[in-house]
């Protein structure tokens, strides 16, 4: 019997036993576990004191989101007791954060006043018994929500987050793009959808797109540090979590949703999408059920560049999901189904590439079951069990239309998390186990064996606050087995056989308020990443990537060590952040250009997966200064240098020094942004990699938002690359053929109701 089946049977038997004999599992002390709390309040605008509707409110630690009513009131009902961070976001206003402490049976009222951007510093008015806590613990390093998300909305997730400090994007045409954070991407920078892995293959190759449509995203968070180990052991780069709220986790008390239309001239196309959340309790006699659904369609043509049209870059994407949630006061049970499919092209014209490029079709279907049980017993706060299954298929068509390559990945993912309250030294934390089972197959022009992969991880995340000092840490242990369908020897790859890996990862972060305006912190992290099926066993031409990739069946795991020191300053009209970091790997796994042609395909350069010592050093910073009422001057810069340890050789595909400066004007219902972004030349290149020239481009954006007819209307009109500058991104694999897109008039309309 296979190990996986055994594990399933053991777990099934365990849960079945608990189900039929609840008395064994439940002691009398747990009787209070179903007590929940409520958080209510009103939100007002600072100058007029008028109520503010359509404020996006989130209890960060729970992932609960609602929007305030048109009369400014809001209600979170059936909240499990605990300490949370309430975040309020509204277009044109500063984000507000507020710590709230909820006990069973409490109804806490927290009224907020939102302040216009570029005005005096925010303050919070709290009416309630609980003490106000200033510190925001779970602050992401970047957070796109509301108007910022709408302004930055791009064709892909990478393009959407690409303006954030420290982030660049690796691309191969407009569709297959992935964010790169501090020079790290692929499996070292996880991209999640509602906290779950996407099940796609975008981490493995630059021609594989991320299976997430940004149109229906409500928030995109970038996380770094100890909490990233909740999602995986190898995430030294961080985590990009795209939140769509697919499964409703808190009971809505009205119908709400949004719709978005977007268009651009540079690709003569656009996208549209909508989401809708409905409470079913009025229809079901008060039974706490809710449904949510969303759908989107994107259709764009070939990209126009200052040098002409870039052929085979058209894109069509369809996305849809639906969910049903049961929201009793003791927890949540939600089931969701989602389908995503995309057709896109990879431009041609390279040595070894098809003259007309390669066409790719991608489909991903997903099923999610989320359960949460609110406990609030002794030190145990909440138990969560999330399951997801995804079926991913990706087919590369050659210029004649016949199949060149097909990838299929079936993934089961199971996550069990126990949220802990105050215990021993720590205030709160999470203990959990997660398991993944992957079934990987290829067909077409490939010699890579089909394989199965099983992984199991256990993790613990804890945090503690001492007055002005905040401390959090995480440890994780992972086991992974990769089993090819058949064992054989390959002169290229080595002995293809079952491989097993295990390893520890851990992280520690300390942060202190040096003064009322200055915060300093240090973060240490040890990551562990076992090689993927592709890194071990791949052998075959990757037509879309214009390479012949060869794995190494003997590769070991990759251990990374990260150190970061950072400062955050908020003083009057000044807000700034700077960080220095050092990331070291003793066996950094990547496909290295051998500089010679493949013996099988002597028209394609051979890339071999190797594990080498690597050191990445860098710095990043961002500032915002309210130079006058309504005016904000902003700037950011990021730099990273990647070198092979002990060698005078640079790592390929490392972004150059890049950043931007801008001036924003916010007033009433309008905001205007003038931004200049650019990059220095990249001359520190890897072996067989070409240098890239520096560049600059200018964008101008206007944003208007107004409540009308009981709905919030938000319109963004922008011109990207205003001067139609011809420039090439160092991380673009097609930079030798075509520059980046030219001038683009972009319109994004979003209505919240």
């Amino acid at each position, binding site marked *: 019997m296979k190990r996986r089946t055994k594990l399933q049977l053991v777990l099934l038997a365990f849960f079945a036993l608990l189900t039929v004999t*609840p008395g064994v599992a439940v002691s*009398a002390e747990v009787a209070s576990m179903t007590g929940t709390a409520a958080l209510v309040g009103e939100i007002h605008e600072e100058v007029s004191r008028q109520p503010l509707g359509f404020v996006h409110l989130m209890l960060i630690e729970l992932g609960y989101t609602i929007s305030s009513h048109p009369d400014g009131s809001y209600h979170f009902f059936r909240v499990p007791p605990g300490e949370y961070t309430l975040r309020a976001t509204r277009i044109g206003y500063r984000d507000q954060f507020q710590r709230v402490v909820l006990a069973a049976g409490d109804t806490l009222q927290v009224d907020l006043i939102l302040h216009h951007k570029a005005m005096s510093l925010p303050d919070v008015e709290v009416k309630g018994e609980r003490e106000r806590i200033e510190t925001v613990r779970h602050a992401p390093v970047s957070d796109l929500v509301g108007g910022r998300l709408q302004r930055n909305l791009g064709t892909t997730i990478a393009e959407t987050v690409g303006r954030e400090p420290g982030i660049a994007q690796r691309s191969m045409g407009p569709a297959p793009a992935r964010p790169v954070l501090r020079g790290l991407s692929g499996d070292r920078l996880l991209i999640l959808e509602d906290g779950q892995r996407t099940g796609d293959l975008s981490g493995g190759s630059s021609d594989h797109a991320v299976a997430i449509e940004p149109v229906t995203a409500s928030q995109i968070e970038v996380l770094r540090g100890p909490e990233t180990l909740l999602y995986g052991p190898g995430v030294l780069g961080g985590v990009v979590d795209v939140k769509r709220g697919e499964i409703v986790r808190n009971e809505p008390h009205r119908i709400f949703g949004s719709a978005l239309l977007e268009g651009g001239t540079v690709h003569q196309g656009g996208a549209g999408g909508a989401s809708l959340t409905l409470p079913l309790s009025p229809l079901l006699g008060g039974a706490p059920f809710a449904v949510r659904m969303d759908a989107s369609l994107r259709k764009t043509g070939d990209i126009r560049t200052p040098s002409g049209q870039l052929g085979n870059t058209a894109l069509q994407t369809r996305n849809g999901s639906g969910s049903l949630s049961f929201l009793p006061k003791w927890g949540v049970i939600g089931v969701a189904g989602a389908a995503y499919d995309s057709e896109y092209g990879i431009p041609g014209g390279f040595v070894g590439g098809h003259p007309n490029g390669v066409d790719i079709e991608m489909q991903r279907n997903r099923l999610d079951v989320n359960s949460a049980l609110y406990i609030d017993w002794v030190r145990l706060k909440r138990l969560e069990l999330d*399951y997801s299954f995804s079926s991913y298929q990706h087919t590369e068509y050659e210029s004649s239309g016949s199949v060149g390559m097909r990838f299929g990945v079936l993934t089961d993912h199971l996550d069990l998390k126990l949220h802990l309250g105050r215990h021993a030294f720590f205030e709160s934390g999470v203990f959990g186990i997660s398991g993944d089972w992957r079934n990987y197959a290829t067909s077409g022009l490939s010699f890579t064996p089909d394989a199965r992969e099983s992984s199991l991880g256990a993790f613990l995340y804890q945090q503690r606050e001492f007055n002005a000092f905040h401390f959090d840490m995480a440890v994780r242990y992972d086991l992974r087995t990769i089993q090819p369908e058949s064992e054989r020897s390959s002169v290229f790859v080595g002995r293809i056989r079952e491989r097993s890996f295990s390893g520890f990862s851990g992280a520690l972060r300390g942060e202190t308020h040096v003064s009322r305006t200055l915060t300093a912190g240090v973060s240490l992290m040890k990551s562990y990443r076992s090689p993927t099926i592709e890194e071990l066993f791949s052998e075959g031409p990757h037509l879309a990537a214009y390479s012949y990739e060869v794995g190494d069946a003997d590769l070991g795991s990759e251990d990374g060590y990260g150190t970061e020191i950072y400062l955050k300053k908020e003083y009057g009209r000044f807000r700034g952040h700077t960080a220095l970091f050092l990331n070291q790997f003793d066996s950094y796994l990547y496909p290295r250009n051998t500089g010679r042609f493949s013996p099988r395909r002597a028209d394609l350069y051979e890339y071999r997966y190797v594990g080498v010592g690597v050191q990445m050093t860098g710095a990043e910073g961002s500032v915002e200064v309210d130079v006058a009422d309504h005016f904000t001057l902003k700037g950011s810069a990021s730099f990273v240098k990647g070198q092979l340890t002990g060698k005078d050789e640079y790592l390929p595909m490392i972004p150059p020094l890049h950043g931007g400066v801008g001036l924003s004007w916010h007033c009433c219902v309008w905001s205007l942004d003038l931004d200049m972004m650019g990059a220095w030349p990249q001359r520190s290149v890897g072996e067989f990699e070409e240098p890239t020239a520096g560049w600059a481009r200018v964008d101008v954006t206007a944003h208007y938002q107004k409540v009308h007819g009981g709905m919030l209307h938000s319109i963004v009109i922008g011109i990207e690359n205003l001067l139609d500058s011809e420039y090439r991104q160092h991380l673009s694999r097609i930079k030798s053929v075509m520059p980046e897109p030219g001038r683009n008039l972009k319109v994004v309309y979003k209505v919240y109701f």
Partner: protein
Amino acid sequence: MRSTILSIQIFLLSALLSLTLTGCSGDDNPARGNDNPHHIEAIGVRILDVSQTLLVEADGTEVTGSITLDRDGDTGFLTVHFLHPDTGEWYDPEELEEEHEAGGEESHELVVTVGSTEIATATHGEEIEGAPTHWGFRLNGVAAGATTIRIEIYHEDHPDYTSPLIPVTVR
């Protein structure tokens, strides 16, 4: 207490559902068994003349030898053998193809591409009347000069093997 037990039971039932679904992936991988074609495996090519004398050997990316012919002349019928990556032995593709066809698999095609057709042209085996095999070709000299050829094994519309550039001189 009863409602607490009920809530735990419902939660555990959902957990049970999750664990039951964990078997979803099964063997239904969409990429498995999808017209997986049989590729000819080769990492080198030998070109032999009519007397089976070795003219050129491309072992991996290393090329030894060259082809020389006269303007307005030809090379005669040249045959090819390939180097198998696993066995390390040179083999006649004719024999391998017979095995493949017996197994109901698709046939493969030899394609010879000349760098400059102003210097030389290639005639493939199936275009030559009385050719002993379609795994061969003939080069025809057009004008004096140097060019290259590339040998490929085509399988449907993609090459299973592509040789390095092989030098050709027309006197």
